[in-house]
């Protein structure tokens, strides 16, 4: 039976500490995709072939437990309950792909949950590093160091012209996807977001919402990531993302300042109302919760609200997702019951409990 602490706590260890620019950048993530030579990609692999991949990759980490990246534990997907898989997705520790389309899928997680190494996802190996705040360079350094460890004993599928060969043509070359998750409420309120996101697209980056359906950004949270993986070095990709993120941070800061200068009362009212509703409502839909949480987060960042802490907000963000609610209050919750328990969780954490 796998250790379930990964699914019982809402907050990964890394979420507790801030990182730089943490009032705007929630987290930085780097993922690199690698495959083993002469093995069919997971798309075509039989169960036996997928098991072989697991047998090659999983021991590498075991043999390098002292490399300084924490103690890793192997979690096999077919040994997990459906609900636990859902929770791991909600915590961004595994991808929906690993849950739905994977044969012999597994993940190696370190204690603080900052590194998650997926096996038999779309590619044989996906090394993901997730850091709080704006630390995209640090996340890359960690990921590439872990990549080096694997490379010492695993023959990667690599071609001198095409680079690291991946299952999907959109990942070939560096296999690198770097992203920053940003909270951009002021750019949304001042209607500048569309212009900024289309500018982002023009420099080889892409922006999408998280937890939202399709591209809709729930709670004004956007994920900016590189689109191009071939023809640029890793350093160029990271620098490009870094530079653009800094610009967006500046724009968001300016927009926040302008909101405070021009409509302090209105913005304060909106934040207070959202805080009030989250603290006292009896029914809370996910979409409204994301929006209210965004307002409260902005209130804390602007110093309009003294509490709760950002770490409490991060925790609520994860805990009020459907999988987590089901885990806490019962597996077979209807969506109306989810809305009720979600409201209860907010009241218990923020409001007066009676």
């Amino acid at each position, binding site marked *: 039976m796998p250790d379930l602490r990964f699914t019982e706590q809402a907050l990964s260890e890394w979420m507790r500490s801030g990182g730089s620019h943490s009032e705007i950048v929630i987290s930085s993530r780097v993922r690199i995709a690698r495959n083993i030579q002469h093995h069919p*990609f997971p798309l*075509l692999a039989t169960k036996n072939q997928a098991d072989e991949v697991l047998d090659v990759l999983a021991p590498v980490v075991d043999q390098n437990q002292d490399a300084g990246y924490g103690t890793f534990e192997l979690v096999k997907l077919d040994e997990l309950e459906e609900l636990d898989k859902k929770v791991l997705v909600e915590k961004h520790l595994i991808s929906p792909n690993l849950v739905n389309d994977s044969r012999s899928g597994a993940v190696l997680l370190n204690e603080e949950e900052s590194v998650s190494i997926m096996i038999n996802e779309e590619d044989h190996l996906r090394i993901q590093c997730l850091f709080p705040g704006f630390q995209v360079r640090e996340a890359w350094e960690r990921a590439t160091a872990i990549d080096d460890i694997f490379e010492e004993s695993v023959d990667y*599928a690599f*071609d001198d012209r095409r*680079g690291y060969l991946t*299952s999907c043509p959109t990942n*070939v070359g560096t296999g690198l996807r770097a992203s920053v998750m940003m909270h951009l409420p002021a750019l949304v309120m001042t209607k500048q977001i569309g212009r900024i996101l289309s500018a982002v697209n023009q420099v080889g980056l892409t922006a999408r919402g998280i937890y939202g*359906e399709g591209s809709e950004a729930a709670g004004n949270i956007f994920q900016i990531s590189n689109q191009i993986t*071939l023809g640029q*070095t890793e350093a160029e990709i990271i620098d490009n993302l870094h530079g653009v993120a800094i610009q967006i941070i500046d724009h968001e800061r300016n927009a926040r300042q302008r909101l405070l200068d021009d409509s302090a009362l209105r913005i304060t009212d909106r934040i207070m109302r959202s805080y009030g509703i989250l603290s006292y409502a009896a029914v809370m839909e996910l979409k409204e919760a994301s929006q209210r949480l965004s307002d409260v987060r902005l209130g804390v960042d602007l110093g309009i609200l003294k509490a709760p802490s950002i770490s409490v907000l991060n925790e609520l963000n994860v805990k009020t997702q459907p999988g987590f609610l089901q885990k806490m209050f019962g597996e077979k919750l209807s969506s109306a019951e989810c809305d009720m328990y979600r409201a209860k969780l907010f009241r218990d954490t923020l409001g007066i409990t009676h």
Partner: protein
Amino acid sequence: MVCQECGVRPATLHFTKIVNGEKTEFHICENCAREKGELIPGTSGGFSIHSLLSGLLDLEGASKGKSAAEAKPQDVRCEECGMTYGQFSKLGRFGCSSCYKYFDKGLDPLFKRVHGSTSHVGKIPKRIGAQIQFKRQIDELKEQLQEAIMQEEFESAAELRDQIRKLEKEIAQE
């Protein structure tokens, strides 16, 4: 037909999903497809970035007509995993790393469209890196050699030729 997502632009991507015998048709424009990214609500993963890529691949064939079809016939097969180019262009994903070799001719236009580039310039695995560095060096020297011959600088051409031979010998010994 108008895109069912935005209701404004004409629909250019059409696909059908059949679940338990129930047929659902989707007609959307490329903008919405790109915005929706991985998932269109209600299709539970039926529409993915891979279908988009497959659209690009088909487009390549269609726009260039016969000559393109000749250059990358649908039945070129990867001898390692058995995937055909036709299957690859439908799935938008390779079956194994050797597919890159067998489908090589059709890949440059695709990579140009997706990445704006066709060659890797990033990290090289350390263990096999030495060989690749040698190869990159040899390619560079060969270019210089051509240049020297063109300029009739035969003395430096001879030097370059010796350097190339030396490197090739080192590779052979490894």
